[in-house]
């Protein structure tokens, strides 16, 4: 009997098959690209089904670890250079991401069957999204830095291709390039950080699993003595990682690509630029959290950049009129919250990772919902994206309208929605971070709190302008509601956007599960990585973690709620009741509006000043240098030779073959010289 039970348990152990989570969508990609055109609805079947397979394995692994307590699992194979492996890790951190990504990706594929039904290159679209999903799984499952980087770039290239999916639009092609370039700035520094990490790990005499996360964590004590240019090596490496994060997770100042990325299909915006890919940066910090903890000052930078981005992006969300771009700025802002709370890990320890990941998962649900419902709006009124030209859509498309309302409520952290549990917890703990002596403490908290009121205002500005009032353009008069595929997805996501917090016991179950990461041991095929003592690791970086949980005062708990209500009230007064006429302030001669409208001139700085003026000037100069100076010397030499060779010039017949004789002549010369020097011949 017990044999049967053991056999059943072994059969039910999905953890050794984790790599298939990644491989199935890759297979889906190949099938879709090669034969997708000839199958059901001309594409989409292989991608969707292969991701369904990933969903099953992901939740199977979750069952193994969360319910059966089979423990964390990691396995790897040798890859190309000595000590560089392809490895897969199953722990609460990767499981949280896997389950979220597979679930959301599956439903977005489901939605896309309806949304992309009129596109002629549907199989290419589904091939690219399947490749993206597979790469995202590869990123999440990675047990080492290099594999993470490889898939980090792969999701980037899928993002590039999908933003430019409608390649015939010049804006789409330009937006894809901008996305890649912004990320490339961060990625080259990230790669440099990996090279440095490799170097200092090899210096410790480590020959296997050189840049695997768990192996790095075990050696942090030795690594913390390493220096680069007189500074702590770990701090420099963490700053370089952070540059990669700023590019991928759209942190200030590399966030400029996200609003432009909205040129792609809306499903792409939902999948890549809201729910999954842009959270890769947050995931990287969470995954490498012990390294950041052991590096002096690294988490302070993380906290500040996150909080600043959170506030900065929400001010921009106030003035944009493009429905998708409003949500894009809100994504940047919410990612800022996640990064900020990870920075607060300097005091909170692994709990910060749990809070960040819960907000990440909740955000994925409600932001995907917001994008998909705006996709439904675009689908329903003929691709009008300007909220000034919408209005009164709730009557014509109630499913879409209420789905968007559900997403909006979760985004502004309305009580009992998912966002309420995830975001308010972040703000409360940012306060605890401040009171327990975190660097820049109150500044981080103030930034995050101010973001709340702006979030509520811009979110409901968009919803009221789009859904209520009178239609303000011809297409908005007769919107048509979406069909079966899209409606189903909206309902499912609405349920999670509203109910995720309640389902997880106010987040508590989720947090407890996530807090086991790093602290518990990880099993491998050959041995065990013992759990980490994060207090000691924190001391390496001068971070003293809180010993016990702390509770903020009541007013801190209620403040975000009050501010949210205030923001909601502002939006309602201005955009629903129309009590205040904002057109007095929203005009070109208002300098504040000008600054916001021009996005703090950051795009201008990057594109017009740096890219077009500085780099163009440099490379024009470079071309002149190449053509006239370097090649000039060559031509000058040949001119001198020709001039001095006027006498022998008659030998030059200009017949091409004669020059070949020169070659043979050279070879003969060699032989003659040899014979001369050799002598005796």
């Amino acid at each position: 009997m017990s044999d049967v039970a053991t056999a059943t348990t072994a059969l039910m152990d999905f953890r050794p098959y984790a790599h298939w989570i990644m491989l199935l969508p890759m297979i889906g990609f190949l099938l879709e690209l090669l034969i997708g055109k000839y199958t059901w609805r001309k594409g989409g079947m292989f991608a969707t089904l292969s991701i369904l397979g990933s969903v099953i394995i992901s939740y199977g692994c979750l069952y193994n670890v969360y319910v059966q307590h089979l423990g964390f699992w990691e396995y790897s194979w040798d890859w190309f250079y000595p000590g560089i492996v392809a490895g897969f890790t199953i722990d609460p951190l990767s499981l949280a991401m896997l389950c979220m990504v597979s679930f959301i990706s599956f439903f977005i594929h489901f939605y896309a069957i309806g949304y992309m039904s009129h596109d002629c290159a549907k199989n290419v679209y589904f091939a690219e999204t399947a490749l993206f999903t597979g790469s995202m799984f590869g990123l999440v499952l990675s047990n080492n830095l290099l594999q993470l980087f490889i898939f980090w770039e792969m999701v980037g290239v899928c993002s590039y291709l999908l933003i430019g999916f409608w390649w015939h639009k010049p804006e789409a092609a330009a937006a894809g390039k901008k996305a890649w370039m912004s990320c490339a700035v961060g990625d080259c520094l990230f790669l440099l950080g990996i090279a440095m990490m490799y170097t200092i790990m090899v210096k410790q005499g480590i020959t296997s699993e050189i840049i695997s996360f768990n192996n790095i964590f075990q050696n942090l004590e030795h690594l913390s003595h390493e220096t680069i240019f007189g500074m702590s090596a770990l701090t420099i490496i963490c700053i370089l990682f952070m540059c990669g994060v700023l590019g991928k997770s759209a942190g200030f100042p590399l966030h400029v690509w996200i609003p432009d990325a909205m040129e792609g299909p809306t499903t792409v915006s939902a999948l890549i630029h809201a729910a999954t890919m842009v959270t890769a940066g947050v995931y990287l910090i969470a995954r490498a959290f012990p390294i950041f903890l052991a590096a002096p000052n690294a988490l302070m930078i993380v906290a500040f950049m996150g909080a600043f981005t959170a506030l900065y992006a929400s001010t921009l969300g106030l003035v944009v009129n493009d429905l998708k771009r409003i949500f894009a700025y809100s994504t940047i802002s919410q990612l800022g919250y996640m990064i900020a709370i990870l920075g607060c890990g300097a005091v909170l320890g692994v709990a910060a990772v749990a809070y960040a990941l819960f907000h990440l998962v909740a955000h994925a649900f409600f932001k995907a919902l917001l994008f998909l419902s705006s996709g439904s709006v675009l689908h329903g009124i003929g691709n009008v994206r300007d909220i000034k030209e919408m209005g009164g859509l709730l009557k014509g498309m109630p499913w879409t309208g209420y789905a968007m309302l559900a997403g909006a409520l979760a985004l502004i952290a309305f009580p009992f929605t998912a966002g309420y549990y995830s975001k308010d917890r972040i703000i409360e703990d940012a306060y605890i971070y401040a009171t327990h002596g975190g660097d820049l403490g109150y500044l981080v908290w103030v930034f995050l709190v101010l973001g709340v009121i702006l979030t509520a205002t811009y979110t409901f500005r968009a919803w009221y302008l789009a859904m209520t009032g009178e239609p303000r353009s011809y297409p908005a008069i007769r919107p048509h509601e979406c069909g079966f595929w899209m409606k189903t997805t909206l309902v499912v996501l609405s349920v999670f956007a509203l109910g995720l917090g309640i389902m997880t016991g106010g987040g508590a179950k989720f947090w407890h599960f996530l807090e086991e990461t790093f602290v518990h041991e990880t099993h491998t095929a050959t041995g065990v990585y013992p759990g980490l003592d994060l207090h000691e690791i924190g001391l390496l970086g001068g971070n003293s973690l809180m010993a016990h949980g702390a509770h903020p005062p009541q007013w801190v708990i209620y403040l975000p709620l009050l501010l949210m209500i205030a923001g909601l009230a502002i939006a309602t007064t201005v955009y629903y009741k129309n009590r205040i006429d904002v057109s007095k302030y929203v005009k070109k001669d208002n300098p504040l509006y000008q600054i916001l409208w021009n996005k703090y001139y950051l795009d201008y700085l990057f594109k017009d000043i740096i890219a077009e003026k500085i780099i163009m000037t440099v490379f024009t100069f470079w071309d002149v240098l190449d053509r006239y100076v370097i090649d000039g010397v060559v031509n000058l030499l040949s001119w001198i030779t020709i001039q001095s060779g006027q006498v022998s010039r008659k030998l030059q017949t200009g017949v091409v073959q004669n020059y070949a004789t020169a070659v043979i002549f050279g070879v003969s010369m060699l032989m003659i010289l040899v014979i001369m020097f050799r002598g005796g011949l």
Partner: protein
Amino acid sequence: MGLITILLLVLLAGAILSLLTKTTAQARGVALVSSFGALAISILMYLMYDANFNTVTHYAFEESGTWMPSIGIGYHVGVDGISLPMVILATIVCALCTVFSWTESKRPNQFFALLLLMDLTLIGVFVSLDFFMFYVFWELTLLPMFFLIGIWGGPRKDYSAIKFLIYTHIASVLMMLGIFALYYFHGASTGIYTFDIPTLVNAYKDGILPISQFWLDFIFVTIMFGFMVKMPSVPFHTWLPDAHVEAPTIGSIILAGVLLKMGGYGLFRVLLPMMGVASTWFIYLIALFGLVSILYSPFAALAQKDLKKLVAFSSIGHMGFISLGVAASVLAGMDPARVVAHTGAMFQMFSHGIITCVLFGCCGVIEHHTHTRIIDDLGGLTKKMPKLAILMVAGFFASLGLPLCSGFVAEFGILSGSYHTIPIFIILAAINIPFTAGYHLWAVQRTMFGPYNEYLGDVKEIKWFEFLPLAVWVIIFVILGIYPEPIIGMMQTTAEYFLLSGDILPIGGIHVPAGGAFPW
């Protein structure tokens, strides 16, 4: 008669037979049989190659015989973990090039004969273990390339062909001086006059030549100059873009894909053992050549209006990584990291050879179909040539260093493995990556995406004989990006032998005495 001799004879026979044919079909048939036969032989060599040869005999398939014993010229050939991949690269590229030129109608017999001769001479360079043979083949590569540019080339073909010939020929002559000095000094001191590469190089390395440091450095610099011009390294690169612009597509593919690798190969075969004896600042000089090439190429490429010239500049940058990796790996440091850098540099040679074929192939296809290569005249070609778009995007992304393509494996090895010996160089090289990405993406955006330029008329989709070779190259670099072990395994064994055995370099690497290096 060993496999290498058979390989050379198959190509020679093919070249002669092809010259005797009358029509395109006949010439092509001969060329296909001969070049794919060569490919089959090289694959057979790969399968028979034992990765542990190094520890026993150092060279696999070694053949040595006398040729002109009175002056010490021998027939000595053999391959190891660095030359065998180069032989495979040459046979793959040339075999697929014969497919690519399926419909060549201008003097087809001479065209295919030259193609096979090109293959022959390139393989000759990679397998020669005798300086005389090496130099003869080295010079002979110029000949077919010169005619390919001069007869099948573009409007300024005469200028380009002659510039190519004279420039690289002058470099070769300097290299000859170095080789000759080595030969003479060795003969004078030991009484044995020989051109055998291992013998001469070992004599130099072991310090048994009774000559001053000046002459040691003289030998080193002259030979290095020959290799640096061939690679080409900035500032000796100006012959390359001109040659590419005027060369026919096949010429460009072979030129960038295989011919440039001769310079890199020379670094490993000839210069590497000498580095321990010549002045140490030459090592930094080689690294500096590499770094300058890497930094220089994106800026020069951004300014180009001709797609092919842009791709030509990308080659210069990628070849720079090889010098950088070699220089970094010979310096004293941590052995595992040095091996990684060295292996990465070796793999970069193979990887760039495959990737650049796709880039030049795409340029060629665009030129054949639209009759222009000027980037501003193109645009939205995806509409008419969706298959080409997939290949071109794949090629350009591989070239900018996308992971899961072979170029990334090589560049990651070089960057990670070199950081501990030359950190500042590596930081500068890494910061350069976005610029490299920039010109690649900008070029793709302006040629392939955006609205279709209606002035181009009705452009036809890529033909099967153009598609097939490009697709094979793409598949090769993707497979090697995901699983590089088949090539990188033998390279790594050889790299370990070069760096760690003490036969080639001092154990532990070359220590730079205080003040012996450049101030940086």
